[in-house]
């Protein structure tokens, strides 16, 4: 994958080596804990087990149970206590084991995490990162493949970001931990194990900016997390058919990078957004609405949404029919009159 914005290799760069998203996240946590004594990590099974996806592997052993520990099994409890810790100057990083299991914490996240800074007129800051493995594609049974981003992005006070590759996974998580705003950090679980050569530590584009991954002139594909690969595949196939596809990795869902996306759409005059979540009221609706508001007179066709269906995420043997594919993207582009 070619990054148009090459990551700036820092002075201390180690020789680049193949690393997975899970590995990069693990390294980011390790380096952040090492760098700042106020950083703590807790949640369900994040201690000795290292998390069900091994993202916290080895951290408890390395830093001890006062920096990385297993909490009781209660998501509201995890987020609620993290809020109290942050009020006392800590920087907690907590994990929701799977996205559907963040729902018990919904009140703590929407009514407190998102609002405490505003409520206290800026007196209280909550530098908390909530890590959520999200979306499907791993053959998980019910409740293990939800895409919950639309719930968070609609909630003022939250910042919502999602990496699609190991370099961003490291850089964006470090930036999220350093941020004084609460961050919902969505990790595309189907991509956890995809490897790339990266020299750590790495600093990529700012967490809140979108990145053009592939330049093109005919159409702009807007993707994030697990669907970035889908968009790139579609771009490859499209190229064979003589279609010049620009691919943008949104990276930040809230805030939305209107500038980068706007510039691209004004160039291509056509855009489509791709996500796994159900379409109705999904994040793609906001993308389509705001791109249309801002670029209406540049658009040659309506912004397309290539998404999951408006149904609960299906069982493992049927999920392939639910997930957006490169073929579906290209089929959708064909519905436009060119």
């Amino acid at each position, binding site marked *: 994958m070619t990054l148009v914005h090459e990551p700036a290799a820092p002075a201390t760069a180690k020789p680049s080596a193949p690393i997975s998203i899970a590995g990069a996240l693990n390294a980011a946590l390790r380096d952040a804990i090492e760098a700042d004594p106020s950083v703590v990590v807790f949640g*369900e*099974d994040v*201690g*000795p*087990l*290292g998390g*069900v996806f091994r993202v916290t592997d080895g951290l408890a052993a390395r830093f001890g149970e006062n920096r990385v*520990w*297993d*909490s*009781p*099994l*209660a998501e*509201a*409890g995890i987020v609620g206590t993290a809020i109290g810790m942050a009020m006392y100057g800590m920087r907690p990083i907590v994990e929701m084991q799977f996205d*559907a*299991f963040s*729902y*018990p914490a919904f009140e703590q996240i929407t009514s407190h995490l998102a609002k405490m800074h505003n409520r206290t007129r800026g007196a209280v800051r909550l530098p908390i990162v909530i890590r959520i493995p999200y979306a499907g594609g791993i*053959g*998980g*049974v*019910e*409740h*293990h493949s939800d895409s919950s981003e639309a719930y968070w992005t609609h909630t003022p006070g939250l910042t919502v970001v999602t990496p699609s590759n190991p370099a961003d996974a490291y850089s964006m998580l470090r930036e999220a931990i350093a941020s004084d705003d609460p961050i919902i950090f969505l990790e595309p679980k189907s991509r956890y194990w995809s490897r790339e050569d990266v020299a750590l530590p790495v600093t990529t584009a700012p967490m809140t900016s979108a990145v053009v991954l592939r330049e093109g002139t005919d159409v702009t594909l807007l993707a994030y997390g697990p669907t970035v690969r889908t968009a790139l595949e579609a771009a490859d196939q499209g190229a064979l058919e003589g279609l010049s596809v620009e691919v943008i990795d949104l990276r930040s869902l809230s805030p939305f990078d209107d500038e980068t996306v706007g510039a691209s759409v004004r160039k291509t005059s056509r855009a489509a957004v791709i996500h796994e979540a159900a379409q*109705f009221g999904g994040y793609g609706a906001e993308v389509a609405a705001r791109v249309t508001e801002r670029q209406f007179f540049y658009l040659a066709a309506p912004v397309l949404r290539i998404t999951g*269906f*408006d*149904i*609960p995420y*299906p*069982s*493992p*043997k*049927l999920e392939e*029919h*639910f997930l957006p594919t490169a073929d*579906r993207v290209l*089929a959708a582009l064909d519905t436009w009159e060119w």
Partner: protein
Amino acid sequence: MSDSVVGSQLPVRPTEKPICLIAADGKRTSPDLAAGFELPASDILLSLYRRMVLGRRFDVQVTAVTRQGRLATYPSAVGQEACEIGAVAALGDDDWLFPTYRDTMAVMTRGVAPADALRQFRGDWHMGFDPYEHRISVQATPLATQALHAVGLATAAKLKGDNVVALTFLGDGSTSEGDAHEAFNFAAVWQAPVVFVIQNNQYAISVPITKQSHARTLADKAIGYGMPGYYVDGNDVAAMYTVISAAVVNAREGRGPALIEGLTYRVEAHTNSDDPTRYRDRDEEDAWAALDPIARLERHLRGTGDLTEQLSAEIANEAETLAANVREAVNAETELDPLEIFDHVYVIPRETLAEQRDYLARELASAEQESDR
């Protein structure tokens, strides 16, 4: 809904030591450990024994085929047979069971065919059977949420004047969730005919009970709700069956809910994708192996002479038939219609779903044509 609160007697407090009727050596325990509960008759013990053997054989076989990749995942209940079978045996036909992902053994024991019981974990559909056919709800994944469904169903039955009891399983870790608390409280306030069976198998995936609760026992939680609480040896099926049966009768006769903690052990990994060596050691596993619920009852029944060579041979045969049954079930190809994913989202049909269904239908049709070429 509130009058029921009035005139209820003070709850039974959990005992100091776990209630136990048959010790690990197969011998009967002293009266203090029996806490006033009677040992069931030998025919009952024999049928509990038989169902535990079948239950374990079932789970061992399913775990094996899961390793062969036939199932998406499988959480085994091996080692917890006394809880799984003791609970199911205590329920009447009209009663309801609210199991978790851990309790497929109980689901199968209550009469669901292996093929149906395993459909969820095969990845065919979220639930593999009709809840109303067996009075068994979905094997809940969101922890502790099903306990509230049990309380609601039991309350509805009570309001309708039906003598129905709802039994829900909970794991030790699940007791930390807010929903567990709300279920205990609603059940007590509404005096709902519910029995909460907590299988304390010492772990929530990798997290030991010491990181989950600071209480003396999980059964002690009952006190805070004004419910009877029972602290039981969860590897003694005689005790589990007897205590749960008493709680079921109490509930049925309008004396409200009860909370029962069975001390047991999750012998297998959390699921096939888990690695217990990361968080527990061999010695601990061996210590619990010595308390095995099946071996214990077998010793007892051999001692009393109720379990003859012939009988155990029969049971062993039955177990092998069941195992073959399981292999057959998981090897059989299931016909799945992808379009069904749109059919049960709403009772009242939706245009947008019809459109999306047509879209997928067209996609599948053209894929057909492709492959025909």
